[in-house]
């Protein structure tokens, strides 16, 4: 296997990992603080992509579309919190799962009604549509670099927000003792709504970033949400650091497995057997990793310290 392919796939893995982190971090925030399981988180990812697609055609500019789509997705997150999540906080996880499962059907069908059954391709501005030559043999699309940069920036911003701002302090306090925070005179309802909206914006951002590559389509959220679950299970539910490391790990393992597993298998078995078994194993790879992690550490790699 040659080196430039390895580097390109590693970058693709990092890109997938960062997108997974954007989705998983919202899940982690909402679960860590609100103790709420939101299956419909993937639908917010999808809505982010569709809204951004429509706005790109409206403004004729992808970046403006992202800037306007972000608060819109946050607003949808707020509405979801207000009308679906809030009545369910006091219920058990089973009710959370079923309620948000219903919400997925509603949101997916609404997207179908508004944007039609086919996917929507999102055009990029020229300066983002090109390629950048890192070395003579190593060429990667500039937009993929932008995804990596945006993902890292969002991760850094989230880290700063949670650890160094007053809002972040309240979020952390709410995660360790909800009752105490509200007894100290903090409006816990508003805090919860803000956290939910923030999670929706992060998921929406991931959808907007992937839309120019894969196009916005119905059901795109339902495939990423399971992988995001794997990420937060491996990382330890409720841990932001765990989600970040696990997201990169899962992104890299998945991408590398799909491209190099047959080569690795050929070292140990006949080329024919490798060709047939590699796709099956690489499809299951991240789930096998998840099972291994759980067998050794049922609480995930980095369980949150508090609680």
């Amino acid at each position: 296997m040659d080196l430039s392919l390895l580097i390109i796939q590693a970058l693709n893995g990092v890109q997938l990992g960062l997108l997974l982190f954007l989705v998983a971090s919202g899940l982690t925030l909402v679960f860590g603080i609100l103790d709420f399981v939101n299956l419909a988180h993937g639908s917010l990812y999808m809505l982010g992509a569709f809204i951004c697609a429509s706005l790109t055609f409206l403004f004729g500019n992808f970046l403006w579309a992202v800037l306007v789509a972000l608060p819109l997705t946050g607003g949808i997150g707020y509405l979801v919190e207000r009308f679906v999540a809030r009545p369910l906080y006091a219920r058990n996880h089973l009710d959370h799962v079923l309620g948000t499962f219903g919400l997925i059907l509603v949101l997916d069908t609404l997207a179908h009604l508004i944007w039609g059954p086919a996917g929507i391709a999102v055009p990029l501005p020229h300066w983002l549509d090109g390629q950048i030559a890192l070395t003579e043999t190593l060429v990667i699309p500039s937009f993929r670099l932008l995804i990596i940069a945006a993902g890292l920036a969002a991760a850094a911003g989230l880290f700063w927000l949670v650890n160094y701002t007053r809002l972040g302090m309240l979020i952390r306090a709410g995660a360790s003792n909800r009752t105490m925070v509200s007894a100290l005179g903090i409006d816990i309802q508003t805090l919860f709504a803000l956290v939910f909206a923030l999670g929706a914006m992060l998921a929406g951002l991931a959808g907007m970033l992937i839309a120019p590559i894969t196009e916005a389509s119905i059901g795109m959220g339902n495939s990423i949400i399971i992988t995001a679950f794997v990420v937060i299970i491996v990382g330890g539910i409720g841990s932001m650091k765990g989600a970040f490391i696990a997201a990169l790990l899962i992104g890299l393992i998945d991408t590398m497995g799909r491209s190099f597993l047959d080569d690795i298998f050929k070292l140990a078995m006949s080329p024919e057997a490798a060709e047939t078994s590699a796709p099956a194993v690489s499809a299951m790879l991240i789930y096998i990793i998840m099972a291994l992690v759980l067998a050794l550490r049922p609480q995930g790699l980095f369980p949150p310290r508090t609680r």
Partner: protein
Amino acid sequence: MSFLTRRGWISAVVMALLAVLPPVFFLTGNAFYLDLATRLSILAIAAVSLNLILGYGGLVSFGHAAFVGLGAYAVGIPAHHWLYGGLDFLATTSGFVQVPLAVAVTALFALITGAVCLRTKGVYFIMITMAFAQMIYYLIVSIEEYGGDDGLVIDTRSELPLIDLDNPLQLFGLAYVSLLVAMLLVRMITRSRFGMVLQGAKGNEERMVTLGFNIYAYRLTAYVISGAMCGYAGALLGNFTTFISPEMMDWSRSGELMFMVILGGAATTLGPVLGAIAFIVVEEILSSFTIYWHLPFGLMLMGVVLFARGGLMGLLRGRREDGE
């Protein structure tokens, strides 16, 4: 006898109607309703088996569609090899091989994944069962020999003595009797010592552990029984649809099974069946009006979760039976 309670009467009436109405419709020229009832009965078997661990065991499994799918592929794959060659030891159309194979494969899958899943609790358990089901989904998608994404057509139904599965009436009869057996089986299990321990662990895990029960072993056993029953339902479903695809193990299918249990009433004998009936009938009615039927359907699901706790059985319950 429990047949004197209101629930007992309702169960008897519902099951009698389910036995009589579809064949009557079929014989009067409405074959469609018999098909509907066959599908409904098969899905009800899956819901009844899910109820064993979800309702009585308190274990929220979000991956039961994988068992249904595996059971269906245990019928489809031997039939595929029988017709197109390859893997001679597996190639058969005999139901006496296919159905036990479906049960064995799903029991084994339940044993392996259950051993991992049951080490965790609560929301971890929900997500992990879901992830393992998705793993099987992607596994089947990646195997091109069996059609991958496009699915697999089962050209020949399972061959059984005395019963001809190509005859819709006989297929319905098999599904209906299987459903009755599944309901009785779960009822017997939940009333046995084993079932009492399982329900005790749902109510208060620490107490059961302190009493000296190995909760993990009890739950794993229940998980394997439930998975194997679902596998059997899958074998029937494969024979009914004669077309199987990874889509039947998608996590939304698992969600639908869970919803049937909750809609009808978890931890009751008839609940999952009522849930399956209501689910299939509403789905059928709504989808005949509009292609956007998922919208009102989703709203209905949310409404049931938010406002109708205890499910249909909760609404039908007599006053004196509150303790049941």
